[in-house]
């Protein structure tokens, strides 16, 4: 606040010079540098009997601005495993780059490609290594396990992980997760036949939930990238979403 000269007495000028009531400084605060930023986005992974689908939207935001409309959040680790990661894009890229290197090293040392459960454990260890200055990245791993069955692993930013059948993460996670519980976990439904999950149903469901999330979450939209992982490899599908 400036000291406006009003022509009044010196005492009044002194009173005006004091910080306004309720503020202990003059409104001058040292802004701490924040090492993190939030780039938004939603990811989801679903596991079936012999396949897995790893999907994410492709929008990168910062505040109310969109940085780009086609930034993939899904990173291929091998022909049988993909990691999807969202949160702070800087940490996401570093983390996936690190894991990619470790996978290469493993392949050269042991003469075999790292399996999904092994990668899952390694990701957990990598995240916990930074326990006191975490990677701001919510990760979901999807792929085929050692027996060829679909597997999904989900993580918190410091490495706590769990194997599941489906998981949504990111800014729109709370919009997606209940519907996945309902349709894939058959929760709150009595007397329904629990058919085994097909690729078709999984992709349709992911498409529907992401369309719903783009309606209500400002950080989700632009396009949906789905990666279907089977024993024959990884097939990619890109579907446009709302761009607003």
């Amino acid at each position, binding site marked *: 606040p400036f000291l406006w000269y009003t022509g009044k007495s010196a005492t009044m000028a002194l009173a005006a010079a004091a910080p306004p009531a309720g503020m202990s400084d003059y409104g001058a605060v040292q802004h701490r540098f924040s090492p993190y930023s939030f780039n938004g986005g939603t990811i989801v992974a679903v596991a079936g009997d012999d396949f897995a689908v790893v999907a994410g939207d492709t929008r990168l935001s910062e505040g109310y601005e969109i940085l780009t409309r086609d930034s993939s959040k899904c990173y291929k680790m091998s022909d049988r495993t993909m990691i999807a990661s969202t949160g702070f894009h800087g940490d996401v890229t570093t983390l996936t780059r690190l894991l990619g290197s470790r996978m290469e090293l493993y392949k050269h040392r042991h003469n075999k490609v790292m399996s999904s459960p092994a990668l899952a454990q390694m990701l957990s260890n990598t995240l916990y290594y930074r326990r006191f200055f975490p990677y701001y990245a919510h990760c979901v791993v999807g792929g085929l396990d050692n027996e060829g069955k679909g597997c999904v692993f989900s993580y918190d930013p410091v490495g706590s992980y769990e194997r599941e059948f489906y998981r949504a993460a990111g800014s729109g996670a709370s919009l997606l997760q*209940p519907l996945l519980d309902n349709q894939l976990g058959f929760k709150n439904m009595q007397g329904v036949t629990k058919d085994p999950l097909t690729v078709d149903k999984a992709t349709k469901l992911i498409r529907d*939930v992401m369309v*719903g999330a783009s309606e209500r979450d400002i950080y989700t939209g632009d396009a949906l990238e789905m990666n279907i992982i089977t024993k024959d490899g990884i097939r990619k599908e890109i579907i446009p979403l709302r761009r607003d």
Partner: protein
Amino acid sequence: MSIMSYNGAAIVAMAGKDCVAIASDRRFGVQAQTVSMDFQKIFPMGERLMVGLAGLATDVQTVSERLRFKMNMYKLREERDIEPVTFMHMISNLLYEKRFGPYFCEPVIAGIDKHGKPFISSTDLIGCPMTPGNFVVAGTCSEQLYGMCEALYVPDLGPEDLFETISQSLLNAQDRDALAGWGAVVHVITKDQVITRTLKSRMD
């Protein structure tokens, strides 16, 4: 600690073909401690009009009682039932009067007007009204409710289908919220009657 998530709630209303439905959870808790499993959050305001209130429980009760008073006065003066859109304006005014010291509650209104047309609406805690036409949500699990409703809702459902849709939306959303749950109440309002059903859900 946020005031709006001190007690916890899940309220949703949906419009169908010549019918509306409004549903809520039944939990009353104080942060992590659950105190009661039959707390009323939806209140009738006429034969074909109901209001659900999410937010701080004390304000839910105070606002519902203030509304009951205003409704009774309206009925005595006008000698007729209030229209849903008029009621929405009444709530909006009641809340905005407290603009700089608000009631910490978010109302959800569901009713059928005198021509039989369905009406749903909600306001924020200071009374800004919103009339979307498909569904409205309020409470600590509003994001979960938005996700479920966006996916499950189709327009022009009949009373039975609307009941199924709104129930599944509420149940699965409240299961992903620690502060809402412990059962559910669903009211389906048509021109002739109101059907109230109580649902058993995960009791945790």
